[in-house]
């Protein structure tokens, strides 16, 4: 059982629902980072068959196993997909020195219409400066229904995030987040390890929900400064991304509200009255 202190807070969970990722800088100790680099350079890391419980993967001694068994990372995994999820696959992504092109923008796997979601952990075992590229993320793209490389035409978005980080940093991603490997303009190889995990329990209040009621907030005065004055769940879910279209950005808030309701079971939760307004279809007839 994961100690509650390692579980995500409600604010962090809301950030994940809004932006589709969480970032943890310099989380993995340097000694493990160095051991992972040695393993990458000397034959790689053996994968388990798809559908294997994560607890059966990477038996000791394994530097990747050591990372995944860190209580901090167990807490992240538990909060997002629950205890002992299934290993889907892993990949060691390598960007060669002075590559001319970046990877095309894409979403992983195929179009996926579930509310239930997988996570992908991306681990960066060495420092990644901007000229080395880093994985590029499009924040808040996880609910867009597209199929894999259909979006390869998109080269740049306002507010895109190149993963520039120190060694030992980690991203936890919703499976739908648009991303690509940026080109590497250094003389060194760039490595990134990615693992996809499938939940085996209903994704319902898996994080530290001690502050959930207080963080949800109640109805607010919309179209006023008061609406986003407090950094509660409603405020976090209402923050737009720089690349959102005017109208599409409002629909993304609806997507987030639906996901928050799915994760909390609170069918009355709303942001800015967007969904409540649409759900108001009175059938009570006045007496003639």
């Amino acid at each position, binding site marked *: 059982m994961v100690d509650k202190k390692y579980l995500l807070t409600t604010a962090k969970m809301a950030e994940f629902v809004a932006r589709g990722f969480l970032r943890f800088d310099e989380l993995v100790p340097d000694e493990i980072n160095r051991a992972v680099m040695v393993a990458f350079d000397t034959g790689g890391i053996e994968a388990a068959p798809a559908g294997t419980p994560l607890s059966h993967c990477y038996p000791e001694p394994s530097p990747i196993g050591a990372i995944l068994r860190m209580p901090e990372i167990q807490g992240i995994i538990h909060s997002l997909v629950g205890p002992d999820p299934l290993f889907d696959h892993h990949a060691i992504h390598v960007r060669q020195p002075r590559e*001319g*092109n*970046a*990877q*095309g*923008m894409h979403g992983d796997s195929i179009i996926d219409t579930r509310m239930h979601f997988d996570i992908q952990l991306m681990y960066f075992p060495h420092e990644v400066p901007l000229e080395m*590229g880093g994985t*590029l993320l499009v924040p808040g793209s996880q*609910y*867009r*229904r*597209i199929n894999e490389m*259909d*979006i*390869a*035409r*998109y*080269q*740049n*978005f*306002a507010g*895109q995030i*190149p993963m520039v980080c120190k060694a030992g940093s980690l991203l936890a991603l919703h499976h739908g987040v648009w991303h*690509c490997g*940026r*080109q590497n303009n250094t003389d060194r190889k760039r490595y990134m390890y990615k693992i996809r995990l499938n939940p085996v329990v209903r994704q319902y209040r898996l994080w530290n929900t001690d502050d959930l009621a207080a963080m949800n907030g109640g109805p607010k005065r919309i179209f006023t400064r008061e609406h986003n004055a407090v950094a509660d769940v409603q405020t976090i879910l209402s923050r737009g991304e*720089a*690349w*959102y*279209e*005017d*109208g*599409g950005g409002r*629909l*993304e808030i*609806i*997507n987030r509200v639906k996901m928050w309701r799915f994760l909390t079971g609170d069918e009355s939760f709303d942001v800015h009255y967007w969904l409540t307004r649409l759900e108001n279809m009175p059938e009570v007839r006045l007496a003639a």
Partner: protein
Amino acid sequence: MSQLRQKVLILYLANSALDSEVKGWTHYDGTGRAAHTTGDSDRPPYSSGLNALLDGWRVIQFPQLNPPYPGLEYTTSFQIYEYIFEKLEAIDG
């Protein structure tokens, strides 16, 4: 003798107005002078589609405004407001 080559600029705008804000951008350079790729710039080349016109780009495609398919009114997917521009530039033949 010089020959003409096409440069293509795709701008993804905030709404259907050509003078609305640029949210995403893509370049393809048929002159071979520049090689653009994914994630190669963090600032849009123009702040709006109109500003691209003012710099000599010609619009060759306006996005169609289609009503959403029934049942998909709240579904988000591709960028809707995709404007395609071109410039013709001479290269030495």
